[in-house]
């Protein structure tokens, strides 16, 4: 996030929240509460989502687009803003570059043209653009609905284009704000758990950076980028990758095209899985290393707003479970690299020496406060808002892009579009939440949302068992007949091991980030007529 969550609490009349590709109330409930309260105080809300959510109920404008048509929609918003002169001319002149090229592209996307691509009425596009153009402050929030597309990078850039076009960056109650999906995914990325960077987003292809780390760690830093997940799987197929070490991840349920992932991870010579439960992935591992839960470890978490917070051990881990840092350092020792840390603080201190954004953050400071990076010095208060007074990189760059359709479109054999997402009760592959009585109770099984028209055509009634299939697999689940989805669209989650949407999803991915297109693929649905006797469970079908 360029900005901070707390700013939402100050939003009201004159402010606008633009939520695109985020089911905030379900997936980030606390931020969702803040958003609804802001709306109640008088802030405007624009929601871009193919599916009806709690957020869409409160929206001033709901742009119900076809999955994967975000670029066309965002370009059309820019088109209308430019047409009416609502852009932030001063900001654009002073702080941006490449505006002319962007204008060229935006010109092609009239609301009518965008309506044809996105399915959103041109009128609604115009209304949304007017709200954005005339608001004092616009804060944009997005999540996987933007990134998990073959056009993921283009989508993010298109979002960013809107922000800089209207000067809604580097100020209070504005910004480009991706809401991260996990408590510490921001921290993991900050720590360099990415194939191309070292901690603090320092590029491995930078010689000076490599030199700095080589000196600190006493070893050579490879200059080649690491592999992204699709390349890892490809490497296994080509016998180039011999071992895979996975921790805190369950790709056998969270990655697209599970059948293919399973095939690869079964094929690889050595599979190590480090997790707190015996996940589906752990079950096929050669070695399972038991980790600890959040309550059993010390360290820091870095939240979606770049806020570094201390986490303290509350209970002792059971059995042979060890914190990740300890397992890793023991492994390093065993493999002949000296790594005798006594406490995560030592690791944190080592890290902040090498990571300028974290340099000013210390355990001592974290004892009484939490800090948002960049925090270069120990007397720096942290940075709640990025890009204040101009972009950190110098000039904010417009990166125009044209609309590209999703990799797989519906056809006669697979006539429906599947989009995936989450429900409030469950987290990710359900490894943890499906072990909780209450969470399991409110969401006991997968419900495939399907529009009444499609359901009627297929002879499917609400609550009936159905089969959903794609070119990659087939799963069975229960039909939820609802107008939450448009005709032609079905929605599933990947929380349920026995009915995972990722059996069906497409592994086609963004060319730059290799983020897979989990938000759109083609599927077919049929009623299950020859089903085994239904196993009665205690919960009544949900409303």
């Amino acid at each position, binding site marked *: 996030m360029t900005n901070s969550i707390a700013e939402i609490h100050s939003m009201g009349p004159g402010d606008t929240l633009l939520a695109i590709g985020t089911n905030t109330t379900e997936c980030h409930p606390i931020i969702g509460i803040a958003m609804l309260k802001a709306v109640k105080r008088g802030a405007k809300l624009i929601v871009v989502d193919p599916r009806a959510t709690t957020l869409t109920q409160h929206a001033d404008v709901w742009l119900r687009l076809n999955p994967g048509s975000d670029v066309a929609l965002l370009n059309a918003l820019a088109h209308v803003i430019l047409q009416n002169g609502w852009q932030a001319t001063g900001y654009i002149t002073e702080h941006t570059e490449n505006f002319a090229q962007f204008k060229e592209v935006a010109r092609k996307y009239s609301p009518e043209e965008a309506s044809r691509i996105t399915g959103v009425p041109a009128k609604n596009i115009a209304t949304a653009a007017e709200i954005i153009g005339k608001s004092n402050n616009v804060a944009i929030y997005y999540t996987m609905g933007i990134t998990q597309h073959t056009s993921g990078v283009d989508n993010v850039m298109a979002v960013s284009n809107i922000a800089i076009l209207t000067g809604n960056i580097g100020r209070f109650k504005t910004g480009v704000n991706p809401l991260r999906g996990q408590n510490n995914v921001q921290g993991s990325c900050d720590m360099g758990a990415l194939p191309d960077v070292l901690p603090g987003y320092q590029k491995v292809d930078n010689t000076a950076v490599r030199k700095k780390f080589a000196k600190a760690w006493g070893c050579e830093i490879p200059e080649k980028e690491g592999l992204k997940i699709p390349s890892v799987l490809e490497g296994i197929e080509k016998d180039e990758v011999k071992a895979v070490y996975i921790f805190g991840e369950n790709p056998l349920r969270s990655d697209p095209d599970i059948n293919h992932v399973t095939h690869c991870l079964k094929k690889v010579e050595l599979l190590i899985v480090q997790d707190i439960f015996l996940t589906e992935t752990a079950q096929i591992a050669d070695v399972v290393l038991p980790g600890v839960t959040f309550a059993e470890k010390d360290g820091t978490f870095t939240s979606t707003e770049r806020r570094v917070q201390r986490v303290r051990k509350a209970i002792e881990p059971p059995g042979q479970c060890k914190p990740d840092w300890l397992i890793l350092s023991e492994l390093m020792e065993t493999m002949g690299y000296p790594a005798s840390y006594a406490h995560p603080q030592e690791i944190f201190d080592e890290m902040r020496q090498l990571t300028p954004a974290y340099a000013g953050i210390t355990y001592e400071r974290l004892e009484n406060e939490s800090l948002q990076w960049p925090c270069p010095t120990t007397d720096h208060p942290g940075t709640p808002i990025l890009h204040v007074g101009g972009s950190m990189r110098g000039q904010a760059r417009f990166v125009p892009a044209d609309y590209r359709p999703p990799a797989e479109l519906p056809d006669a054999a697979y006539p429906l579009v599947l989009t995936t997402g989450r429900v409030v009760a469950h987290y990710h592959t359900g490894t943890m939440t499906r072990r909780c009585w209450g969470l399991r109770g409110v969401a*006991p*099984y997968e419900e495939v949302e399907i529009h009444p028209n499609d359901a009627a055509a297929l002879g499917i009634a*609400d*609550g009936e*068992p159905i089969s959903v299939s794609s070119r990659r697999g087939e799963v*069975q*689940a*229960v039909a939820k007949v609802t107008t939450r989805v448009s005709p032609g669209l079905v929605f599933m989650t990947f929380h349920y091991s*026995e*009915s995972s949407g990722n059996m069906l999803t497409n592994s086609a991915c963004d060319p730059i980030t290799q983020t897979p297109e989990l938000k759109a693929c083609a599927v077919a649905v049929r009623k299950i007529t020859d089903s085994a006797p*239904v*196993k*009665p*469970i*205690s*919960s*009544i*079908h949900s*409303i």
Partner: protein
Amino acid sequence: MNTPYRLNRFVIADPGKCIGCRVCEIACSTVHSREKTPLTAGNMNNPVQSRLYLVRTPQGAVPVQCRHCENAPCAAACPVLAITQKDDVIYVDEDLCIGCKTCMLACPFGALKLVPVFENGLPVEQNLPLLSETAQPENSNGDSDGYKQLHVVIKCDRCLGLEQPACVANCPQQALQVVSPEEHLAARMHEAAVSLAAVVRNYTS
């Protein structure tokens, strides 16, 4: 795969629509007849034995039948397990019924009925001799030859196996419907939620 438990569906009448024509009773009796399903009245040899009951009161008419209770008191009362849950109905196995009538005591709806058994228009006898003085050939009870006629309890089986219960399919007023408790609940809650949203906005403002 887990799927939701579905509560037993049942037939219910809309008293506002019922005109009291008794077609439901005829239809019920017809499809449950212990003879080849009679198509015409003249081919109906067994007496009409309906499993739903048109109740006529000064307020109007309405047919009453089994609710297929989840904890069916009739089933719990049956000493020979003749009443069980079959698919999603509470079902009487008439072959097992001993005519003890306990289920009739238990049912709060009056949905069960003890009937003499006929097959192809003839009373079905059982191996239960009548005391010689009371034995009369073909007396009004259908007893004959010194033996008592077989009696069993019957009740609505929601025409299990048919696409639609006969009463529902044949009601000329469409006054009868099969209720799915889940669908009913969902519809009610949906309405309640929508109306609540508006009401509470007024109350809290």
